[in-house]
């Protein structure tokens, strides 16, 4: 259901503050898309540790790389995207080289505000636009973008808006407007807000949604609540846990498993589960958007199996 709606577009942008597991959700979405036979590209932006590393172990180095059959990934480097743009505009290699080698260009690139974001979004637009040479079918069935996490999650998406008003005429402005058209078009782009069941993260996600509506006129397609603690004990069992705690009794419930330690773990799990439910309810009350909860998974190493489990949950949502 959710995936039908998301995958009816070809660009999915994930937004959310740092530490909410955006890249994990992105990778899981890609797995789910791949499972449906889509050729999918996961785009990260200057990610220090790529999500693709969870699956493969080698970084993409700025090139689209096939992680699993049908599942590609790229870690975009803003500088490389800028260089590519220069080459695209200045078609003569010798002249392009001249620009790329000049100190002016480098200073400009590091200094000019918003330029990097604009180039990255421009690159994403080009990826969305890319067509196969003969069939003219899109190269990518789906592109999932793990947008850079900033305190003000909107900064990245607002750059084309700022650029199109700061530079109304000329190629920069024109491109900024094309990018804006793309991310504002609900038929082509889905904005997904990722959060976790914690106060700050939820408040910020709600604020993000409000600002996206007000300042960009974009309505997110869905909310994903990641790392949810799910119900594991029935009400009666929860009462039993409290009762046994109070009794102070301490033996083993299974070989090597002390009762009181297990009860303490259970109480923590119950507390987190209640907090999860609290935030789920709060989001459901405030939002009229699809809300998907993904489970908190404990793993020695977060690997393909864990991602598969999340992908299945997305499929079932």
């Amino acid at each position, binding site marked *: 259901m959710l995936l039908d709606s998301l995958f009816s577009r070809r660009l999915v942008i994930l937004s959310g*503050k*740092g*530490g909410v597991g955006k890249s994990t959700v992105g990778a899981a979405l890609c797995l789910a898309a791949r499972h449906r036979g889509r050729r999918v590209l996961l785009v990260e932006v*200057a990610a*220090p540790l790529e999500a693709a590393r969870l699956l493969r172990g080698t970084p993409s180095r700025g090139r689209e790389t096939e992680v699993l059959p049908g599942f590609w990934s790229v870690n975009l480097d803003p500088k490389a995207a800028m260089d590519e743009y*220069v080459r695209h*505009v*200045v078609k003569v290699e010798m*002249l392009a080289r*001249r620009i790329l080698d000049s*100190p*002016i260009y480098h*200073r*400009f690139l*590091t*200094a000019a*505000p*918003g330029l*990097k*974001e604009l180039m990255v979004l421009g690159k994403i637009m080009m990826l969305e636009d890319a067509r196969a040479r003969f069939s003219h079918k899109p190269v990518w069935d789906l592109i999932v973008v793990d947008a850079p*996490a*900033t*305190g*003000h999650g909107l*900064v990245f998406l*607002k750059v084309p808006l700022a*650029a199109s008003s*700061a*530079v109304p*005429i000329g*190629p*920069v*402005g024109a491109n900024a407007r094309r990018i804006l058209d793309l991310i504002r078009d609900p038929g082509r782009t889905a904005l997904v807000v990722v959060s976790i069941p*914690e*106060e*700050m*993260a939820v*408040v910020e996600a709600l604020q993000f949604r409000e600002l996206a509506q007000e300042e960009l006129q974009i309505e997110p397609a869905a909310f994903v609540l990641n790392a949810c603690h799910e119900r594991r*004990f029935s009400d009666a069992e929860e009462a039993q846990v409290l009762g*046994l*705690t109070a009794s102070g009794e*301490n*033996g*083993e*419930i*299974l070989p090597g*498993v*002390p*009762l009181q*330690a*297990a009860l*303490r*773990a*259970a*109480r*923590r*799990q*119950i*507390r987190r589960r209640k907090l999860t439910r609290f935030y789920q309810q709060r989001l459901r009350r405030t939002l009229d958007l699809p809300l998907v909860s993904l489970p908190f998974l*404990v793993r020695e190493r977060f690997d393909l199996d864990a991602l598969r489990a999340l992908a299945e949950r997305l499929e079932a949502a």
Partner: protein
Amino acid sequence: MAPRQDPRAVLDRALSTRRVLVVAGSGGVGKTTTAAALAVRAARAGRRVLVCTIDPSRRLATSLGLHSLSGRPRPIELRKLSPPPVDRGALSAMVLDVKSTFDDLVTRHTPDQAARDRILENRYYRHVSAALAGSHEYMAMEKLLELSAGERYDLVVLDTPPTRHALDFLEAPDRLMAFLDASILRWFLKPYFAAGGLTLKVATRTGAIALRLADRFLGLQFLADLSEFFLAFEGMYAGFKDRAARVYALLRDPSSSFVLVTGPQPLALEEGLYFHRRLREKGMPFLAFVVNRVHLDPARELRGSRSGRVRLDPELAARLAETLREQQVLAAVERRAIARLEVDSRERPVLVPELEQDVHDLRGLVEFGDLIFEGRPAAAGRRPRAVAS
């Protein structure tokens, strides 16, 4: 190599001696709460403290007992706490207003009204100064310089903007200087636009080619705006550069220090370690790591005697055992990552166990501070009430 002093003592001493505390780290690790808790603690110990946050959400304001914070410092009522602050101890709080800080900076460095208006009304400036990636960092530092210069506060605690790369914060003055030092860019633009018109007449052939390319690449209007912007800033370069240099000097000063806040997950700690290394390279005074939300292993917390076997429904017993196992795995993964951080950084981090409840008032901040310094809430009777236990 054995890590040195007790990091809690180091941190506590800094609260009573240092003048600037920069609280850095990536987002979502409890940075704002940590900054506020440290500020409350220092104020209660008798210092006049200002905490400057960049967190625009109202949560910090609420936890400090206010409805909202503004760009001006507002006093926070601490006398209701028991015990109340000693001596002149007081706390003020503010939230960074990026745009107005930038405007102030411009105002301070422009020679006259006309020059000031030229910048403040420049299209590029108007759009860019607020939306600019990195401007939050520049302005946080600018504010820090301004606040720490006066005599009003003994200690300024700065909660830095959350970034994916916490390092962006440190790079900000460098970037600012590079921006202002774009003498080549100015040299390149000035002759064409100084006259005010968009002419393509240039002196040299190389210049002509470069300009044609730039036009194709960026558009002439953009160059004109940019050029106007640079020209308007002309008289201020020296002042700005001086300012940025002073920011660096302040951050390197022994009366300043950096607290790195991170989460206990391996990736978060890796990032913290990287930041620590860069601080060293830049000669900036590192104070302590604060690792928030550490998950504890229930079996290690409770090492009581066990006797015999307790009969439970086997299915329930299995789920209980699985729940315990999960938390043990989580705690072990974190423990290993923290141990690695200790070895690689040669620092002992301050470990703060996961809170049972979100911090949402002053009392909560005090308790969080106790948790940082004692590893548990200090007063037994004031333990945060758990939802379930």
